């Protein structure tokens, strides 16, 4: 339960306030939520720092769409520059009211194992930019986000021309996802509740996307955190991961 709210005037100021007992507050859909993952005594509000712009950018000669960290899911859905694949990921959050609040940067920063956006961002090779202007891949951030816990994310860069197909499985549309799969050419991101992103290197190293191969990959992928839980059995989640990779790749081929 937060005891203090700081409303800084700039991203640099916001970064200065950050320590192990504080957290950046963007949309509030996670931090202010019942049983939040985040336990911070001080919240640093970044909602009014002007970090919500969406515009074209270029990194190393490659065109990107730069999405400000506090752009909401609704901002992205309503912006004509945002590619459909990313809008689809934003729509995975089924509540319109929640989409009005949840921010792209917040969803990445929180790095949940049932994230709405991470699989799509990872498969598409998206990047994350910190307030110190350092840029890393979203995948790198996700896998080592504790290292970056005190850094303020200021933007996400997505490839506007990426061909991403994604699918999310949850009990109801409003429930937490237990399996989310995104594929983009050779890139495959598979997120499983409890385990987060699982190792897809074997899949990505192969061009075989047959159902048999993908199911075999899913059955054998090593991750002790893929477990039976209230969302389903381990075998079900592994099966879904494999069959969905194959399905999405086939759709892409069509």
């Amino acid at each position: 339960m937060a005891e203090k709210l700081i409303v800084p005037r700039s991203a640099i100021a916001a970064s200065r306030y950050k320590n192990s007992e504080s957290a950046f507050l963007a949309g509030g859909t996670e931090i202010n939520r019942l049983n939040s993952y985040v336990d911070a005594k001080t919240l640093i509000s970044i909602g009014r720092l002007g970090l919500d712009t969406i515009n074209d950018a270029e990194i190393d000669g490659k065109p990107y769409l730069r999405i400000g960290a506090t752009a909401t899911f609704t901002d992205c859905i309503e912006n004509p520059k945002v590619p459909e694949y990313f809008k689809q990921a934003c729509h995975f959050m089924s509540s319109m009211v929640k989409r009005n609040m949840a921010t792209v940067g917040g969803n990445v920063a929180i790095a949940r194992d049932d994230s709405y956006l991470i699989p799509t961002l990872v498969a598409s090779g998206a990047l994350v930019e910190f307030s110190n202007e350092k840029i890393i891949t979203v995948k790198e951030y996700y896998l080592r986000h504790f290292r970056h816990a005190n850094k303020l994310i200021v933007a996400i860069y997505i490839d506007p021309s990426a061909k991403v197909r994604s699918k999310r499985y949850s009990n109801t549309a409003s429930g937490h996802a237990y399996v989310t799969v995104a594929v983009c050419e050779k890139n495959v991101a598979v997120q499983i509740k409890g385990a987060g992103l699982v190792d897809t290197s074997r899949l990505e190293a192969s061009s075989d996307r047959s159902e048999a191969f993908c199911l075999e990959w899913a059955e054998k992928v090593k991750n002790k955190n893929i477990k039976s839980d209230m969302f389903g059995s381990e075998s079900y989640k592994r099966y879904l991961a494999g069959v969905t990779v194959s399905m999405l790749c086939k759709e892409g081929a069509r």
Partner: protein
Amino acid sequence: MNIKCIINSIPRSFDVDPTMKLRDLLQLNGNRAVRDSDDSEGFCGSDTVLVDGVPVYSNLVLAGEVNGCEIRTPDGLADPAHLTVVQQAMIDAGVVQSAYNAPAAALLLTWLLENNSNPSREDIKDALSGIFIRDAGYEHYYLAVKLALEKMNSGSYKTEIAPSFRPELEVIGKPLSKIDGPQLVAGAAAFVEDYVDKNTCHMVVLRSPHASAYINSIDVSKAKAVPGVIEILTAYNTPETHYMQAGQGNPEPSPHDRRLFNLKVRHVGDRVAAVIAETEEAAKKALDLIKVDYQVLPAVFTVEEAMAPGAPRVHDGIVEYRSGAPADLDEYNKGAADPREGKVIYQFPLHADIRKNIAASNKGEIGNVDKAFEESDAIVENTYQTSQVQHTPLETHICFAKMDGGRLVVYASTQVPYHVRRIVGWVTGLPENKIHVIKTRVGGGYGSKQDILIEDLTAYAAYVTGKPVLCHNTREEEFIANSTRHPMRVHVKMGGKKDGTINAIFMEVCANTGPYGNHCLTVPMNSCSKTLPLFKCDNMRYDLKVYYTNTPPAGAYQGYGTPKGTYGLMMAMAELAGKLGVDYKDFVLKNHVDEGYMLEILKGLGEGREGAVVPVGSCGLDEAIRKGCDMIEWGKKVESSDPDWKIGKGFAMIMQGSGLPGLDHSEAIAKLETDGTVILNSGGADLGTGLDTISAKVVAEILKLPMEKITVVSGDTDSCAFDTGAYASSGTFFSGNASVVATQKLKDMILKEAAFQMNEKVEDLEIVHPGAVRSKASGKVLPYGELSHTAISGGGHGQMIAHGTYVTTASSVPYGAHFAQVAVNVKTGEIKVQKFYALQDAGTPINPEIALCQMYGAVQKSIGHSLYESMILDKKGRCLNANMTDYGTPMITEAPEDFKAVLIDVNDKFGPFGAKSISEIACNGAAPAIGIAIHDAVGVWVRSWPMTPEKILRAMGKIK
């Protein structure tokens, strides 16, 4: 921090902690309609407001973030006397029922229409995607938007809201607005939380972390030292009175097997202690300081575990009977264990054996079932399992109690005010004249508010402390400490002949009542008594046993036991049709009952007593089946363009009851006021279903008065007369009929008094619009106002007050058939309900628009139970998904793409103006209809709730 903002166009300034939630700030500002249904989960949407024109959940926004913002709240839209077009359209469409978050929905639809003058169905769906509607379903929200747009664009509605019935009647059977609609949709004071006094104490409950344990000791010394703590209640300082929490007629067919606090806790979430303190913070702080020494015991969670030889006993104390004690009771009680077990007291025998964890049992048979099975050409025999599901009313359980003038006043969100009064009387020792129960509007009940789950303790706390006390459940407490639907294992054996007749049915029901026996006999009885009478079959047997376990408690839930019995029987029937090689539709048509068929099976299926064998009364079942089959094009295979998706169809016939003949009892008092208006005091408890509107329509119809000249006061134990309450689908039939009797009597009094005052013969007089008596002989007209004034002004016989009582042995049974078309993905097991058609014979639907919405709501709820909802317990009995997000209630996204509710026109002989019950029956059809459709699509039977993609994939052999 000083926060300046504009709230509903008025500039405001607050000096508050900036980490305060925006909702709390708005409550401080008096915006009561910004409610909370999910403890800041961001799910239900009752806390929706607009910040700078954007809909947000106010529980997820901090006050410090709205400095300089403009905020609009639902109660800023309009006051009840000047509703907006959107608010009125919602009432007219019938969606304003229990209405706890109707104001929030009105705000969202207003926002939608302000930003989109021609929204599509998808736009409306998206606007409502973050608001949870449990009572009325979502379908008529689309209608509400359409109506609002028509009114805005052309000044009047063009679309028919609902069909009308009984053209010879003025208001009955016509879609007219719900009388409490304006109060509810505008967010005026309506619910318990709106009537809480300032400086009221808060009560919070310490709950058991163990599924089964003796309490060795409780140390409250540190907790008591917390400033502001008034009292701490435990088993050591509260009465040893044994009672039960089921709101049923007295003597109850449920064992008295609990105290306010027990010395043995029997489920995770069971009461251990309660802290009453001046503030919620102090109460919670003290709660954390209570030290309890538990002696943890082994527990049982399933009927299989409970029935196993040597299983741990959930209750193992002394057994007593108020009547009908067995001769060997003393011997039986020698087996009682630790005194901390307490007692189990039966009002009359329920064929129980607590040493075997059996809380109740019953069995019966007609014909010769064994012989009939031998003669069957085909037999199916399968077991169907239903899960533990929760009502999830938007308004969690809440009670406010205080002492006033030496009397205990209890504000309750309840379906059973008179049962609340009785049980509060038991635990406090107060006589009923010293207890005043005020039923407020109920923000969703569905059976959970038939049980006295917090009123007993809250009222006791107010009584012993002399302080006003508020208790309000958290959402988690709703799951772990309230009632749920009884999980059941229904074993069905059904035999048929090649000619397409069913010649034998055996139904074995094993129900899990959890740690206490609320409704333990009657819910499983209901799974037989409201299903077997659908079948024209001479040989039927049922055998039911109910087991105590250490799961969260079970109790009444809309549909009672029927959805579970219907699931098993109709799934088995469809499977048997396949085995016999007959079309399922023909099979159903051939084997369902018709009007006049004698229901021999009912003789053993009373509510703890002998049942009455009666013939089938008015029955729209055949029409519902045939019409539904036409609508869904039964027999026509639908193919998907995507080969991974297979499409199937299914349907189920359904029935329920309309109250409990011979047991239920309703009363009403109709008063002609001195100006000729009428106040009807109804004992009935309107829980949002429109019962008060039914009573008002009854008065309007009989006395030919405009609706606005009638006021209904209901559910107040001081001003109204006794009513058993709103459960067992009794509201319309019993309470409605009591209103008919009272109003008819008032009419007779009016005519008699008019004859006296007009110097005419009663037989020459008639009641005419708008509330007057006319002489057919002289043509003279005497308005009610004049008549009534004279009657109390020294020249008449006093105020005309009529008292109506309704009891009956007659039974008006609603029937229906529900149809589903589903698409199932053969790769992923995903299921989409593409079409759902609910066709029901509700007799005369007195409020047709409200009736349709209740059908939509109940079906949506049962789709949830069938496909998504289930409380999941770990090995220690802890509920893993005691929150809305993980539990799985369906939202608008899960609603069928093509959803239709159809009222079959049947005029019943006994119901008020021909009406029967409407909403409970609508819970019964979804599970079997969907289950049969899944089989039609992919060829597998899924015989347990919820029918998940994983179960489908397993049945298809895709995963092991």
